[in-house]
């Protein structure tokens, strides 16, 4: 299948700072592709390069195999839904949507017909006469997307368009946007810092950090098989345990936590020196409370319960492994089975060795860790 968009080792520098560093990827026609990364990772810069607002310092950009070097934004077969939507306040809804067609020189009733069709498609029939300031946040959203879709772009770029909406509406728009994309079949490239948005909507997600792609894959792959420490922590929730890795006499890698607990890993890790520091990642939802004794391939850890965070189906325990200063988050299933657990109790937790990942510690900061 031909790629609607191919990016080949694109680089962008601002002075000494490299915002986008040798990024390459392909988006198949009709797919929903997300770029997920913390603020400042270069995702907006990358999007602006694709839209044509920035000239890359290196690399090439192809739309349906056509090189876009030197093509101005108004001549590219790509449209951008801006973060603040950037609807034209001096025009009404109809004029906003018809804007692109008019610039192409289309006139008369065919424009009106297309605008009406699109208004129906985004679920706002008959609101062509409304002024922009009469619309609600969600309606503005749909008009901004309709305004781009009417151009029938090869690729539709979306720059965190849900960022300005309140939480409830955002949940709703996620589903709606996904359905809309499936319906129109346009290739979407969506950038966001919200992993839930990326996971729910996308066919493929690229995780971006420090101007590079850490991993490209389906949401499931990113969640179950993260390829780097960054992805493990950024996609989904994860507990991080500082461990040292060594090898036992059978050659398997063993992660030692807190100098006491040994966890045999399912995959071998090649260590270079003894001083290397590793992180063991355990997802709160893969932790089992009070597992059966001597279960095979299970890591067990005694912990003290610090507090219980009751949040209906999303309830969690905050626990502290004994003799440590670490804290872990454990999912607390509301099956009434664990109602007896109180703060201060000592319990055992465990997880299947296949459900953990171990990566060498790397120095990066998550934006929300401050």
């Amino acid at each position, binding site marked *: 299948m031909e790629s609607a968009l191919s990016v080949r080792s694109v680089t962008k520098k601002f002075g000494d700072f490299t915002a986008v560093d040798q990024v390459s990827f392909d988006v198949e026609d009709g797919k929903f592709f997300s770029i997920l990364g913390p603020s400042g990772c270069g995702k907006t810069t990358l999007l602006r390069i694709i*839209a*044509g*607002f920035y000239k890359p310092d290196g690399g090439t950009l192809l739309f349906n195999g056509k090189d876009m070097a030197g093509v*101005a*934004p*108004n*001549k590219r077969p790509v*449209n*951008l839904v*801006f*973060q*603040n939507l*950037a*609807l*034209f*306040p*001096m*025009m009404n809804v109809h004029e906003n949507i018809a*804007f*692109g067609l008019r*610039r*192409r020189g289309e006139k008369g009733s065919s424009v009106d017909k297309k605008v009406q069709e699109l208004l129906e498609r985004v679920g706002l029939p008959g609101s062509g006469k409304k002024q922009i300031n009469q619309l609600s946040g969600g309606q503005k959203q749909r008009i901004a997307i309709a*305004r*781009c879709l009417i*151009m029938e772009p090869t690729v539709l770029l979306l720059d965190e368009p849900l960022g300005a909406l309140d939480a409830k509406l955002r949940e709703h728009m996620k589903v709606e946007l996904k359905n809309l994309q499936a319906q129109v079949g346009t290739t979407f490239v969506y950038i966001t810092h919200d992993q839930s948005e990326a996971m729910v909507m996308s066919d493929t997600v690229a995780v971006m950090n420090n101007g590079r792609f850490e991993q490209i894959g389906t949401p499931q792959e990113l969640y179950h098989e993260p390829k780097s420490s960054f992805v493990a922590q950024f996609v989904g929730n994860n507990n991080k345990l500082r461990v040292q890795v060594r090898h036992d006499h059978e050659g398997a890698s063993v992660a030692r936590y807190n100098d006491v607990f040994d966890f045999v890993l399912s995959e071998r890790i090649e260590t270079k020196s003894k001083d290397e520091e590793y992180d063991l990642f355990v997802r709160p939802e893969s932790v089992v409370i009070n597992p059966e004794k001597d279960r095979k391939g299970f890591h067990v850890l005694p912990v003290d319960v610090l507090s219980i965070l009751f949040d209906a189906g999303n309830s969690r325990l905050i626990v502290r492994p004994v003799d440590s200063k670490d804290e872990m988050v454990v999912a607390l299933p509301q099956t009434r089975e664990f109602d007896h657990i109180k703060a201060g109790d000592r319990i055992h937790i465990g997880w299947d060795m296949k459900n953990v990942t171990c990566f060498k510690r790397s120095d990066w900061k998550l934006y929300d860790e401050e």
Partner: protein
Amino acid sequence: MMKNRKQIKWGFLFFFLPVVLWLFLLIVLPHLELLRLSFTKANTGKLSLDNYFAFFREPIYWLTFVRTAGYSLLVTFLVMVISLPVSFYVSKMVKGRYVGVLMILILVPFWVSELIRVYGWMIILRESGLINHLFVALRIFKEPIELLYNDVAMVMGLVYTSMLFMVVPVIGVMDDLDDSIIEAAYDLGASKIAIWKTIIIPHCAPGLVNGGIIVFMLVLGSYLTPNLMGGKNSLWFTEQIYNQIILYFNWNQGAAFGFLLLALSSLIVWVLLKVTKQSLKEVVK
């Protein structure tokens, strides 16, 4: 309670009275007297419309009047055309502290009196002036040419003196225009001309009309620049008023001219607002 109420009234009066006195003594009262004068005959003191009839009888009067109105509109239009790119540059292209530097560069000429500024232009343009010296030295001109005392010099001078009053309000509205709106238009296939036509100018309309009204009134009522730079070849209607009152001591005729000018400026401002579909309330805000 009563006492408190009275205090508020006194406070209100304290600030309100100067405004009322200012308006009444310096603007309303003299205008009422001028209005009376304009409707009385100079020698007999009787009520008559002669002063207004004289305006229409003498072609030199109403021709000057029409000329003044036309050139004022032209100057206003030219100032708009020039100030749009200037404001765009200051507001959108320049970043950080250079904005302040540019604003000061725009403001600095206005720290000097209008008279000095006009003399500056005269030094540059006159027969023995800077441009003539330069062009003769470069052999573009065979001999010095008088560049002053014509309509072109006068319009240029008027544009120069009123530039600031357009640039400042237009920069004000231009600052409110989100960059992403311009980018969105560009992204949706608009050419640069289309962006100016459909996005920037409609957005700046209140600022342009605001500046337009100020510039138009300033130019229409200006005396110094047309007199010094236009000379005898380019008559301005204010010069006719001056002539009537100062040279001929005909206050009645001068007053009639004054009211005609007031009527003209009110009419044109009203038409300007109607044509651009702006309300006065919106524009003066």
